[in-house]
């Protein structure tokens, strides 16, 4: 027999903050709240069929899917996906206003923009490891990869972020 599912309210209170942190990393602070509602509505819809033992990985899987859907619909609305330049510009120009809204320094918003440039798998892994503070095993579980796969994704992501940080430094000095 399965474990009993906790009341949805309890599940929500347990996972709201980490899922919000994850979505901020995935789609940025402005759009995170829309994705957050989409995530928990989808979770509520499927909740009676969820497995009580693995709710955290389950909800991150939904959140990641919502973040990807969101990015797809945004890039459909805006520019061809291949053209990254406008995305970078928008991330940089929109960031200070966004950043003020969530209490971030301009420096933070630059990191944010760099994180947004990572491929989705690496971005999700980096955000789960550092913004949500999950262990590699749990990152893997949430992203449907092995612990090793999660480690590799984080490693590759960080390498790119370091490169962006170095470029940023060159630009500002």
């Amino acid at each position: 027999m399965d474990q009993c599912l906790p009341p949805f309210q309890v599940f929500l209170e347990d996972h709201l903050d980490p899922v919000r942190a994850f979505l901020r990393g995935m789609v940025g602070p402005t759009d995170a709240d829309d994705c957050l509602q989409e995530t928990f509505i989808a979770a509520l819809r499927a909740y009676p069929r969820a497995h009580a033992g693995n709710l955290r990985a389950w909800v991150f899987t939904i959140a990641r899917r919502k973040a990807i859907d969101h990015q797809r619909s945004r890039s459909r609305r805006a520019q061809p996906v291949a053209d990254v330049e406008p995305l970078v510009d928008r991330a940089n120009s929109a960031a200070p206003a966004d950043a003020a809204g969530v209490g971030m320094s301009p420096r933070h918003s630059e990191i944010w923009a760099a994180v947004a440039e990572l491929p989705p798998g690496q971005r999700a892994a980096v955000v789960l490891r550092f913004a949500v503070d999950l262990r590699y095993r749990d990152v893997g579980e949430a992203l449907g990869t092995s612990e090793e796969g999660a480690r590799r994704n984080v490693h590759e992501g960080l390498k790119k972020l370091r490169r962006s940080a170095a470029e940023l430094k060159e630009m500002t000095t």
Partner: protein
Amino acid sequence: MTDFVEALATRAADEGLLDVAYATLDSPVGELVVAATDRGLVRIGLPGEPLDSVLSQLADGVSPRVLSYPRRLDEARRELDQYFAGRREHFELAVDWRLSHPGFYRRVLRETAKVPFGEMITYGQAAKRAGSPRAFRAAGTALGANPVPIVVPCHRVVRTGGDIGNYGGGPEMKRFLLELENAL
């Protein structure tokens, strides 16, 4: 947190995904938890019952889709406020009986729901009205498991001979409610 949960619950209710809505309510006997489904009031948690255990009971017994959504409890909260203020003798709330055992237990509760404000019956009388005159102990058990106390007024069922008997919220709360109704 609260704004987000409110917006989420509102949308969930609109989309038919909110199976159990609950709210808390301050009353002279302490904080009550009230919960409703689309069929009606399904649970009242008395002070002393931890919120977590009331919510878990709802999740297991009705549906795990339980969310804080006070709006759906507006009418129940209004009637309970009026009752405690001495301005209401009869509840007009629909009751969802799902958390009571069907059969004799539920019949005891349905009969108890008909006992008027300010009146009392004995456990034996409750058993008799439910169709089993000698089952007064089982009637006590049924009343002890009343999922919607106050609205289904199990406090109006007392022992033969003047002792008011047990109550889920403690005998003092039972006495308080009976005094509120000028029954003692």
